[in-house]
């Protein structure tokens, strides 16, 4: 425990992620099997709606300096971070080949919101506008050097989400379509 900066224990971090994962699983089961393929826009919307409040609340509770920054402020930052992150993610997806068109627009939007929830929002909630922290998240150099659990908590899953989505998009040219190509598949086709 630092003077100003709350140290988050590893247990809390795992707990937070387990919570988020549970929310995701619940939303997924709510959407029904195969919904991601048959009606991607609808299923993704459901996922976003279920996941968004959960993530924002959980990570706002874990904010970096609770003294100077109230819970509400952190939540607001999270809410603000959602569209920004969504925009960045959508840009990445489109540049990587997601189709542009009115037909796909909705699915892409929801997908990027979801990705933003995994990547951008937790960071926004926890770190706020601190430049150094953001830089740490962006770079991959923290592994092995940083001792702060919060750093790991934020950056490892978000890097994981990006890499996972990227790898998930790799087999798209194959002419078979399987449910496990969930995320980018829906965004791209």
């Amino acid at each position, binding site marked *: 425990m630092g003077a100003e900066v709350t140290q988050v224990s590893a247990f809390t971090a795992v707990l937070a992620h387990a919570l988020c994962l549970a929310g995701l699983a619940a939303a997924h089961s709510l959407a029904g099997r195969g919904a991601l393929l048959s009606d991607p826009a609808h299923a993704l919307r459901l996922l976003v709606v279920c996941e968004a409040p959960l993530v924002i609340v959980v990570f706002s509770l874990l904010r970096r300096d609770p003294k100077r920054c109230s819970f509400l402020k952190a939540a607001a930052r999270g809410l603000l971070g959602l569209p920004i992150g969504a925009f960045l993610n959508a840009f990445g997806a489109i*540049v990587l080949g997601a189709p542009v068109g009115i037909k796909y627009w909705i699915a892409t939007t929801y997908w990027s919101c979801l990705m933003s929830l995994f990547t951008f929002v937790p960071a926004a909630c926890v770190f706020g506008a601190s*430049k150094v922290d953001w830089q740490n998240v962006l770079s991959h150099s923290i592994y092995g050097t940083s001792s702060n659990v919060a750093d790991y908590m934020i950056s490892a899953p978000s890097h994981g989400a990006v890499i996972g989505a990227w790898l998930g998009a790799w087999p798209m*040219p194959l002419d078979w379509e399987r449910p496990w190509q969930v995320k980018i598949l829906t965004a791209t086709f």
Partner: protein
Amino acid sequence: MGAAVAEWTVAAVLLQVAGLSLFLYGFFPVKPTLPGFSGAESYRAPSCGPVGCGEGPALPPDQLRSLYRELSEVPHVYDRLVLMVIDGLPAEFVLGRGGKPPAREMMESMPYTQSLLAGCRAVGYHAKAAPPTVTMPRLKAMVSGAIGGFLDVALNFNTQAFLDDNILDQLHTIGYKLVMLGDETWIKLFPTLFYRQDGVSSFYVKDTVEVDFNVSRHLESELAAKDWDALILHYLGLDHVGHIGGRQSNLMTPKLKEMDDVIRRIHAAVTSIQDNSHRTLLVVVSDHGMTEVGNHGGSSYEETDSLALFIGHSVESSHCSPYDQKEALQVDLAPTLALLFGIPIPKNNIGVLLPELFNSLADDQKLRTLELNSWQILRLLQKQRPAFCSEDCVDSKDDFGADMLPESTEKKLCRLLSKAFASHRSSLLHRDSNFRSVEAAGLFGAAVDSYSGFLRHASEWLSHRATDKPLYLLASAISLMIISCFSLAGIISCIFKGPPQIKVEHHSELDLDKNWHLDEVFILMGIFLYVASLGSSSFVEEEQYIWHFLTSTLYLIFLIKTVQSILKESNSTLVHRSETKTFHKNNSSYLASYKLIPGQQDGCKLYTVLIVLVAGRILRAWYQGGINWVHFPDISKILNQSDSSIVKSLQTISVLAVVVLYSVSLMLLRTRRILIIGLWLSHLSCGLLVMLHIWKSQVDTSVPINNHSTTSIAQIFYVIASISVTCTFLLSPWIFPTHSKEAEPTSSSGSNPEKAHGLNHSVFLTGVTYTMFWCLLQLLLQQPINAVPVLLILLQIISSVIYFSLEKSLHRQWVQVVAMQFLGMTGHFGLGNTNSLASIDVAGAFIGISSYSTVLSGVLMFIITYGSPLLLYLGMVVHMSVKDSNDISTPQQWSSVLSRMIALPCLLPLLVNSIALTSYTIVLLLMRNHLFVWSVFSPKYLYVCAATVCTYAGVLVIAMTGAYTCAVLSFRTRNYRDKSVDQIDG
């Protein structure tokens, strides 16, 4: 060190070439074909000795005809032939599938044909076409009965006239008069054969009405005329309907009705004059089928399911089941027609006659036709395997009954054949003794069975002949390639190990340490993933996605790193401000020297990366889908369907943009030498010429034959462009000052930056000139639709070069080189190329060539197909020039400057390419029994080979430019130094 590296590299490249050619030789065997035309000797039993030649085409047609008929011992069944080719008609439309009649609307749209089938007056086959299912090879297969080897198909893009033995030429020799109406492919194949002809071109795919009307309008007069003996009709409309709307198109039913009507008219006309000298056979065939969406070219059932429908007196029977799945091969048409018309079977035929066509013949005549076909195939077998020559193959009387043990195919074929001949002989004996009985019928049946058994097996064996390969040869070829690949890698690692002191020392403050960076890890991983995915046919078919994905991810990583570095810089601005400034001033390449303010520079970096990303995305949208997903909508299709004036204006804009970019980059040099002004002028005039060519060629699209004025425009362009590029290459090292006037000539510290400056300037000038002229050439040659992609690729190159020149510290040089190469491959697919041979733009290969020349048009085709990778290699020259001004400050030796400058840009592409080549070779070897080996993997392999050639060419240009420039500059410096020493002395 430089010389050693060069020697090693050349050795590795030579090894690679040797391995590649060994592999090609082993993997694609050129099938031995029999030259010449069959003559009277085809009615005698084959023997392996030297065939007495001499009886030749000396006989006049009439005598030849009677000679053939006498020798064949079979009366010809028909006198006149009407061959109606309906392009792209799947047999399913007429004959149904799997023993079921076709769908109701199909039945209703072809009422007359269906009534013929139901009335047992016609017989239809599912004639399986061999891939590639495109028109010209299929027509060749139909008339010659031979399936060209894979390389024949690949290498014969330009073959116009068809020179092998075929039934049309045979008909012509015996004096038949041939009339041809329809697709002009026939006229290209047989330019001098036809007595009357009217070709239509399939140039304008959107037209489904006029093409067929242009054929049918002659129908009435031709059917009334009696002067022809063979009439060939080729209707293209149905294929066009498929290309537009697929199988379920609204236009399909009317088109089928139209075809049915044509069949009705022809049949009515030929039956009305049915007498003994005008027995006419109407054959309705399609050259290939179509997929559900109307494409063709591959090897799926829908595409290969083509129709062969025979309507004539010999197929009429009292009872039949027209919708049974009767399978045949497309090549079976050739021997069938040859025997029906009493001409020799074409020499390289591998088809088997269709027995139902010979129902009107007597039993012994049927056996004779089978015998003739077997002899012909035996000749072909003897050519391929001398084992078939031995007498005991044909005459072995021993053990028929012993159906023993697995034996070699040759043995089996021999046994079948001798059995067939034996039972044929005994059947003949029975006939001679006039002993008609059950026994004779049984013998006849046995003979027919064994003949057809032999024919079927031999035909299969011949068509699969290409698959057995000498494994040890292939293995040694692959090991050679692997050795060369490793030696290239070794050379590169040596280079990295060699001069690290200078680099690390130079960049020590810039945190370019020995750690692996994200982009570097990514590149290695990306190459690995790419290699791994080459093993899947779908990935090969859709390779453009992989490249686009890799490239844009790489540039996204660049973007992230840039943002990161900006963040870092702004964190520690105060500390670093002064330092960065001095740093920037130090390595002022002239591109950077215009933007010294850090903020602007950051913005510039971001913008350049963004330009690359956005341009890449547009490029991808330009051509969507490779082979499987061609039907995806994309920009090029939209533009194709829209007005041509839009395309024209886009082309014009691209040309203008290229010219403007060139002028800007020349201005950056800030010199007004005559050479530069001259270059600018010549480039401008070249641009004008291209523009003129665009306008001219678009005005007369109605006349697709390249007319004179456009040809001469293109030729003038070639001359001007080659002269100015050569001049630049030769002169540019001479015009820039090696030393500024105030610099002390003797003090090396003062002169070195200047030296680097002169070097950079001249290399820059040469590189820019290469690039821009290449762009104009591409704009001239590529399809009109590709103008904007060319411009986009150019933009990508320019922005990457600017980005790399601004971001010297962030990425290592090898990352930059590989990034450029990735861009090139992405652009290659962005220009609409795929891994199937069908996407090669053959039309462009004849621009500016007045007379037909295989070499020239081949070179042009290569230039068109590999325009983008070559463009990137030329861009690498520019990149080289803006790159290393700061690296050259310490060493004095020109040779080390040279090796520093060109070693990586030359070696890395070679390495990456050799990795791809070697791994793909291994993949091909492993996949040699894969279903798609001929349709997917082999074309891709040809592309890989061509990419290798392209890499060699690009690297050669880079190396030559660098070496020549350095040589000239070193010569000049020495001269200058000598002179100044003289001056001091004197």
